[in-house]
C-alpha cells in the first residue's frame, strides 16, 4: 500500500490530485463522466459577487499543444452559487475549494465573507491572476503591493485555508509568492494562464474577441515547472502545481519540482475522466519505485 495523502495547511487531501478552476464546472456537471469522490479536491468555477456574462464569442483558439481562452469569469454570482449549486455538491466526498474573483478589494472581501459561512468549503483559492477581465484579476497579481493588499484584506475576512493563485505574467514569481506568504496566504497555487494571442492571417484579425487570452495546456508545462521550482526554493508554505498536466508522469514532475498537490486543467476538456486516471497512475508510479509515501517526492528533484 502506498500513502497518497497530502496536507495543504490544515486540510488533509486523500490524494494530491485536484482539478483546476474553470475546467471542471462545479463538479456536478462531470458526474456523468467521472467519480468525483475519487479526487483529492475540486477547485470549482471562479465566483464573483455579481452575475457576469463573460466576454463575447470567440473565446477560444487552439494553439500548438495548447489553447487560448478568454472566457472572462462567466458565472451567476456568489448568491446564486450558495442557493442553487452548493446544496448539490456540498456532500461530495472530496474537498470543494472555491475560486474567488473581484474587480475591487471590496468585491473579494464580500465574496470571501459569504464563503466563510459555508461549512463544506474548507478553503478558498484567491484568484489574483485571471488575464481575461478588464478590471481586477491579474492587475492584483502582477505587482507586489497590490497582491499584498488584497491578500491581507481577504486574510482578515477568512478563517479557513487561504490559497493564492499566482500569475506567471510577472518578472519574478518567487518574489510574488513571498509577498503573499508574508500577507497571510497558507498556500500558493501556480501557474494561472500565460497571456497570449492568436491571429487569423487571412482576415488579419485576432481570433479572440478580446484580442489576448490565457494560454494553457502542455505548451506551458516547462514554464510552470520552472516557476514551481523557483517558488519552492523561496517559500515555506505548500504549493499547488498547475500547468499542462496531461498524465501521471507530468504530475510526478510537479511533485519533484516542489508541488504538494496538483491541479489538472485543460486535460479535462480532452478526457473528462483523466483526473481519476492520474490518481491511479501516481499510485502505480509509487509502487514501481517502491516509494511508500507520495510526500517523499515533494521537492525531491536531484539537481
Amino acid at each position, binding site marked *: 500500500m502506498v500513502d497518497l495523502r497530502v496536507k495543504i495547511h490544515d486540510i488533509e487531501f486523500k490524494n494530491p490530485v485536484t482539478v483546476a478552476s474553470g475546467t471542471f*464546472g462545479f463538479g456536478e456537471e462531470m458526474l456523468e463522466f467521472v467519480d468525483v469522490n475519487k479526487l483529492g479536491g475540486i477547485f470549482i468555477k471562479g465566483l464573483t459577487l455579481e452575475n457576469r*456574462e463573460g466576454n463575447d464569442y*470567440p473565446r477560444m483558439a487552439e494553439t500548438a499543444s495548447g489553447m487560448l481562452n478568454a472566457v472572462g469569469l462567466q458565472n451567476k454570482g456568489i448568491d446564486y452559487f450558495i442557493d442553487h449549486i452548493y446544496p448539490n455538491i456540498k456532500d461530495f466526498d472530496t474537498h470543494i475549494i472555491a475560486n474567488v474573483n473581484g474587480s475591487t478589494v471590496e468585491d473579494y472581501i464580500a465574496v470571501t465573507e459569504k464563503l466563510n459561512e459555508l461549512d463544506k468549503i474548507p478553503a478558498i483559492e484567491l484568484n489574483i491572476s485571471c488575464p481575461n477581465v478588464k478590471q481586477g484579476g491579474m492587475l492584483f497579481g502582477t505587482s507586489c503591493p497590490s497582491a499584498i493588499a488584497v491578500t491581507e484584506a481577504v486574510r482578515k475576512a477568512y478563517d479557513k485555508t487561504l490559497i493564492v493563485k499566482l500569475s506567471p505574467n510577472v518578472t519574478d514569481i518567487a518574489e510574488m509568492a513571498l509577498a503573499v506568504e508574508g500577507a497571510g496566504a497558507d498556500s500558493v497555487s501556480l501557474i494561472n494562464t500565460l497571456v497570449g494571442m492568436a491571429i487569423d492571417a487571412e482576415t488579419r484579425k485576432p481570433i479572440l474577441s478580446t484580442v489576448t487570452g490565457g494560454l494553457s495546456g502542455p505548451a506551458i508545462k516547462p514554464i510552470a515547472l520552472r516557476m514551481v521550482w523557483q517558488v519552492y526554493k523561496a517559500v515555506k508554505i505548500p504549493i499547488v502545481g498547475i500547468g499542462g498536466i496531461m498524465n501521471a508522469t507530468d504530475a510526478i514532475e510537479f511533485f519533484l519540482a516542489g508541488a504538494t498537490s496538483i491541479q489538472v486543467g485543460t486535460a479535462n476538456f480532452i478526457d473528462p475522466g483523466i483526473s481519476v486516471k492520474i490518481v491511479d497512475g501516481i499510485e502505480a508510479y509509487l509502487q514501481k519505485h517502491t516509494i511508500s509515501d507520495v510526500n517523499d517526492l515533494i521537492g525531491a528533484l536531484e539537481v
Partner: protein
Amino acid sequence: MSKIVEDHQIVDIQNPIEENYIITFKSPVDIPPISPGNFAEIHIDNKPGVFLRRPFSILDVDYQKREISFYIKVIGKGTQQLGEYKIGDTVNLIYPLGNSFNIPDAAKKVLIVGGGSGIAPFILLGKVLKKRNIETTFLLGGRSKKDILLTEKFAKYGEVFATTEDGSFGEKGLVTQHSVFTSSEFNFDKIFTCGPDPMMKAVGKIAQEKEVACEVSLENMMACGFGICLCCVTATNEGNKRVCKEGPVFNVNYLKW
C-alpha cells in the same frame, strides 16, 4: 455516467467527393438513443497538431450493428487528419452531446434548409419526421453542383430541392432566393436550418417575417463539448448560453443575432 466515452473502430470511410467524406465507427458497447441534432466529440490524435477534440453532428446510427457515422467536410487540420485514419484504426468518441430539434406535435409540413457540412444532422431528423408522417421538404444550398450532397439519402425522407450560386444544379442563387420561399403555397409549420452563419441568419430572418417557428443548429468552436469550458457561448435573450449544452439547437427568436 450516461455518456459514451469509448475507443471506436473505424469500419468505413467513403469519399462521395473530394474534400468530403463519411466516416463510420463501430462502438464496443450498445449505442444509447441518439436524437436528431446530437453531436459527438472526436479525439483526433493520429498526428501532433490537433490538440482538442472536434465536435461533429451525428449523421446516422445503426443500433443493431452498433455503428455511428459522420459526414465530414474538410475545413482545417482536424477534419483533414480525421480523414487520414485507416479502416481498423481506433478513435475515441464522446456522445451523445447537446440538445436536439423540437418537432411540434401538430406539425404537418416542415422545411429543412442545409448548407455545407450543415446538412449532417438532417438525415436523422428526416428519419424521425418520416416516421411521424410529417411531410418534409429539403432545400440544400451550395456554390456549385459538387457541394450538393447526399441527395439520394434525403430523397428517402422527403422532397429535395437545391440552389447553387453558379446555377450548375437546382435553382441559381442562394438558398433564401429559392422559389420555395416565394411560392404562394408556402405553408410550413416549422423550419430547421444548419449551415454557414450568414445562411442561417438569412433563413431565420425569413422565418421571422413569415412568422414560422424556426430552429437553427449552431457550429461554434468548442474546447470541451460537454459544458465545462464555456468557450462556445452564443448571446441569447437570457445572456450567454453554451452551444454544446443548451444548444446546439436554438429557436431563432431566442438568439441575439
